């Protein structure tokens, strides 16, 4: 009985270490995405300050977006195309998307962790959450 308890505890500790490692990776992910956003913002002001000033705040934050003032893109291919064209807005978008991806990544990694524990219920629950997260990117476009 006592022995069994000890085994359980070490397994729990191992699991905690995995969780902690993942969370620290998340923090790194957040810092990387913040750095990318910062680079994008600096690039934006360095290269397009005149255009921004010319367009004025009104058209930059116009809703729905004014296509001549700001590139509010909403598909991954559009972000990629903007990046290839050296568009600072696209660099910011990459940083924002990295940020949005961190919790998705966190959930995805939990699936093998539950699988290794042979916890079928939680493998299923976690897979469901991941599917919902991935579907969210599709749902907005279908609308």
């Amino acid at each position: 009985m006592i022995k069994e308890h000890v085994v359980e505890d070490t397994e729990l500790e191992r699991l905690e270490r995995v969780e902690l490692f993942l969370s620290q990776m998340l923090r790194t992910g957040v810092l990387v995405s913040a750095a990318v956003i910062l680079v994008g913002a600096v690039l934006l002001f360095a290269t397009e300050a005149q255009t921004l000033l010319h367009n004025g705040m009104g058209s930059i934050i116009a809703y729905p977006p004014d296509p001549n003032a700001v590139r509010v893109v909403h598909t991954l291919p559009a972000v990629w195309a903007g990046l290839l064209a050296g568009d600072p807005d696209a660099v910011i978008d990459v940083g924002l998307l990295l940020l949005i991806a961190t919790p998705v990544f966190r959930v995805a990694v939990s699936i093998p962790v539950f699988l290794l524990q042979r916890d079928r219920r939680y493998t299923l629950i976690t897979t469901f959450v991941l599917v919902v997260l991935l579907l969210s990117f599709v749902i907005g476009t279908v609308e």
Partner: protein
Amino acid sequence: MSPIEFFLLTLTASIGAGLLGALLGLGGGIIIVPFLTLVMGVDIHYAIGASIVSVIATSSGAAAAYLRDHLSNIRIGMFLEVATTTGAISGAFLAGLIGGPVLFLVFSVLLAYSAVSMVRRREDDHAAVPVPHDHISDTLQLRGEYHDAVMQKTVRYRATHALAGLGLMYVAGTASGLLGIGSGVLKVPAMDLVMRLPMKVSTATSNFMIGVTAAASAGVYFARGDINPFVAAPVALGVLAGATLGTRVMSRMKSASIRKVFVVVLLVVAVQMLQKALALLGM
């Protein structure tokens, strides 16, 4: 206002929002959405899109700290995320269908509710009281233990009313997706009062869940084109910097007095959001 002024002003305000949010246990969203809409004149859809991204930044950034003190319960969090993510998608979808006035109105109600719940906030734990058995909670192992540094003992707890908790989490997720906030103010009572989890566990698990919930609605906002990089960049950077700073100074500050001031601020902002809703409706 020139674009550079807009950027710097939003950045500064977002640092303040992140700092205050960390000190008060609120997300930055509840401060940043009113600031962007009322002060900077940004459309509420962009404000919400920018806010939801900053919510992810704070939650993911702080996840390690919450896990290290063994307070957040991964199983309970993951189980409830089934409802919060589904709710978040519903909320984000709904925000695209309903207009600005209704969004301002709902936001105003939530601000007022947050103010009230801050006044009534309890710190005591009721884990010692036995909770009624609940089949789902038992099957899904919704239980755990943590070491309480103040009481100097290990507190064991288990959840009850899992289905009711799940239902409330759907509502919390909808609010999060609709308003671009973390909605910890709804998540914590669902765990604390309904599922009868200790307050500390409820708070830590709620913080753990917020990022995942926000990611679900952020996907919808991005796909719809509501995430304007020019608005979202200073907000994400500012809130992240402010929250990081806030967690550092948290232990050195007494939060009770800030909280009293903040209750008043929340109520004032609630009234202003209400006025904005009425103005948009032409009333």
